[in-house]
């Protein structure tokens, strides 16, 4: 096998490069710190491959434009931070309802509102799950390193195509602005648009296929004329209020995710086999947590780490399973306890939190202090 190429990259750049490798050829965005490097990088690189970069008038328009581009058959992405992510929510809901694949990168910053533009946060965990109105599925991936900014952005495009849904890459400002050497892999799995298997007159873009298979989305202009709407729709895409069709439409978007948790959920486990205390951490905080685990092991504490790489759907079963033998679960995060609340649902009497919301990262020592507290 050929040796992989090694380059020094910033997290945001690696994310943009991952998107290019995944075949993204349309980027619509609006600049906002700390995500701007993604747009700046793509404003140069997309033109070299004949793709389209457009700086839209706002984040609402950006999200709308990438949905339009995706319907025209081009893999598309936008990138933003906290307040911009809030503006995108209505159309993220549209993409979810109309089953249009696309990728949204949110490099989190301190909030609420304008918050702290240049300081990191993990405050958008719940916004990435429940930001738009109504019941809807969410796939959210959470990188902890520059390498993962690359690989998880590719995975986001693959999941978007596979499940015909928007996928969110949720980075914190530390990961987005971090510089690391990464290996650009030679061979990566890319999932592309699927070809229709039926002639135009039989094509139903929202058909329930046997075995939970998801109908392909045929790009506009290829002879498969159909209707796309954000309204509750029937299998042909037309608005409906027929009770059975309403339920079928909404169940479909939920269950295509719920029935495939094993495929979508990815976690990393570190020294959990014999652990009595387990840390649940994601993003940059997971790196501090891993250091804390090493420090604690050095002092004889049986501590392990579970890192949700897929943050939503939440890896509840993994945590329930692990927590059965654990005495305590520690959840450090840069917010007041958004994932902590999820952990409480599976382990109500065992979870404690370490929170930090002042725009500074959580250090291994802080986590270590909590380990000592709960161990004694």
């Amino acid at each position, binding site marked *: 096998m050929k040796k992989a190429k090694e380059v020094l990259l910033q997290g945001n750049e690696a994310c943009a490069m991952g998107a290019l490798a995944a075949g993204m050829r349309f980027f619509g965005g609006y600049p906002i710190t700390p995500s701007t490097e993604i747009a700046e990088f793509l404003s140069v690189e997309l033109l070299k491959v*004949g793709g389209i970069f457009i700086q839209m*008038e706002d984040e609402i328009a950006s999200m709308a*434009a990438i949905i*339009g581009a995706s319907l025209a058959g081009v893999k598309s992405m936008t990138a933003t931070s906290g307040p911009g992510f809030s503006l995108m929510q209505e159309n993220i809901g*549209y993409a979810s309802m109309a089953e249009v694949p696309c990728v949204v990168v949110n490099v989190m910053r301190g909030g609420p509102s304008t918050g702290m533009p240049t300081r990191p946060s993990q405050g958008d965990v719940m916004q990435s799950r429940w930001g738009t109105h109504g019941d809807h599925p969410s796939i959210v991936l959470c990188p902890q390193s520059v390498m993962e900014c690359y690989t998880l952005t590719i995975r986001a495009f693959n999941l978007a195509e596979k499940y015909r849904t928007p996928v969110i890459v949720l980075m914190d400002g530390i990961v987005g602005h971090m510089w690391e050497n990464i290996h650009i892999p030679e061979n990566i799995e890319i999932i592309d648009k699927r070809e229709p298997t039926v002639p135009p007159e039989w094509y139903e873009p929202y058909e329930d296929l046997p075995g939970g298979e998801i109908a392909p989305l045929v*790009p506009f202009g290829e002879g498969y004329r159909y*209707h796309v709407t954000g309204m509750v729709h029937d299998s042909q895409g037309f*608005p409906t209020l027929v009770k059975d069709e309403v339920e079928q439409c909404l169940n479909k978007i939920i269950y295509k995710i719920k029935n495939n948790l094993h495929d979508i959920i990815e976690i990393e486990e570190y020294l959990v086999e014999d652990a009595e205390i387990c840390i649940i951490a994601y993003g940059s905080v997971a790196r501090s947590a891993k250091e804390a685990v090493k420090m604690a092991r050095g002092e004889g504490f049986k501590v392990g780490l579970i890192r949700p790489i897929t943050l939503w759907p939440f890896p509840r079963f993994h945590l329930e399973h692990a927590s059965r033998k654990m005495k305590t679960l520690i959840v450090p995060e840069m917010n007041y306890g958004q994932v902590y609340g999820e952990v409480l649902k599976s382990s109500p009497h065992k979870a404690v939190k370490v929170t930090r919301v002042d725009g500074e990262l959580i250090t291994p020592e802080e986590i270590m202090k909590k380990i000592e507290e709960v161990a004694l």
Partner: protein
Amino acid sequence: MIQTSEAIYKYLRPDKKFPHVWCPGCGAGIVMGALVRAIEKTGLTKDEIVLVSGIGCSGRMSTYLDFNTLHTTHGRALAFATGIKLAKPELTVIVIMGDGDATAIGGNHLIHACRRNIDINAIIINNNIYGMTGGQYSPTTPTNNKASTAHYGNIEKPFDICKLVEACGATYVARSTTYHAKMLDSLIERSIGKHGFCVVEAMAQCPVQYGRRNKLGGPVDMLQLYKENALSIGAYEKLTPEEIADQFPVGVLVDKEEPEYLDKYRNNIQKAGGNVP
């Protein structure tokens, strides 16, 4: 020449999508007829056209016509359309919006689409009111007129849509009314043939929400008002400011040549050393 009824049936989606949601006497159907006749004359196939709409009465038009159709979120139709056109430039993209859709919630997208000059055709059905939500005032409701949220008379100044988009850089701006339906056909046909961002304003009566509250009579009376007040641009320009009361100009108001967005974009791709698609 093809008969209206033949053209309509060729382009409609007959099963399940009807009866339509429009009230008796609504002007939206007349605009739809004009659009269909214009498209028939351009010779474009149904697969070459994408019809994008926003929300509200006008937004439902995309459901009824057999193209690649997209019913978007309120006000955002032009932003969705921008993505489609840039991703697949060979498609003819037509956007149907209402006055509220285009100039209130979507005002930002409208002015920037004009400024960019992307080859998209925007048709704005202006009935001076929010129809589907129940007759609230819109940015084109005339001052002092009544609406369900302007019980004591509208105190806001209305937009002149054509002047607005002209100032923002649209390269083709035209206006007609549902009374001047044949003129509307030809204005739309010409906009589809134009390479650049085009706006056609179609004044359309809303007898149920707007006409009734403002004592304008039934649909026929409202068409009569259009007939009386719409002047060809040439005749309108001869009026002095003192003579202008309720009159407004119809016809082609702007038609100029300016570099189109994608053409400029292709130049930049060449500068970047990429392969021009």
